[in-house]
């Protein structure tokens, strides 16, 4: 396995995430509140929403 420092170099990337990256600081009283905020505010394609089970 490659040394940890090398793995780090390739594992952490930086791309802009709309809405999520637009505030320098957010704090949520509960994790449930944070999850809800993500669902209501972030684009679906970021993947922060819950998996929806389709009927039928």
């Amino acid at each position, binding site marked *: 396995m490659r040394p940890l420092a090398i*793995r780090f170099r390739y594992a952490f990337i930086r791309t802009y995430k709309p809405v999520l990256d637009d505030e320098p600081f957010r704090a949520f009283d509960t*994790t449930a509140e944070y999850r809800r905020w993500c669902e209501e505010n972030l684009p679906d394609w970021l993947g922060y929403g819950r998996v929806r089970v389709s009927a039928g």
Partner: protein
Amino acid sequence: MGAFEYRQAEEIRDAFARHGVRYLFLGKSGAILLGFPDTTQDADLFVERTPENGRAIARALLELGFALDEVQAAQIEAGKDFVQLKNGPFDLDLVFAPDGIERFEDAWRRRVEVEGFAVCHIDDIIASKEATGRVKDRESLPRLRSFREYWVRRQRS
């Protein structure tokens, strides 16, 4: 702001050690520390919710260059369940109450040390991702479970 670098992880490790912060790497950043080959954009830290730990975290973050005002520092000290920091040299999520893990103390007992970094056990990382129900976590879980089998075998040998 650039990507999270190994040097910065060392700075977190060392600053948190100096201030006596109790923390564990969680999420994909934790899995990567364990050897999971993937990419992520920020570091997730599961931090113990005690007044002393909260104060120590705020002090350490200020030392690391995070631009915390008094209100923000107070929210960290109070141990809000989830704190998202993008006002420092790298993105950092502080998670005081992760989904799928009941108590910090239990996760601490199961922790894995990787080059001085305290990391959640792979079972806790998987449990927390299973509990979120998020699309991005559901995408990662099959590979994480498969990695777990490899990692456990490797620990035994």
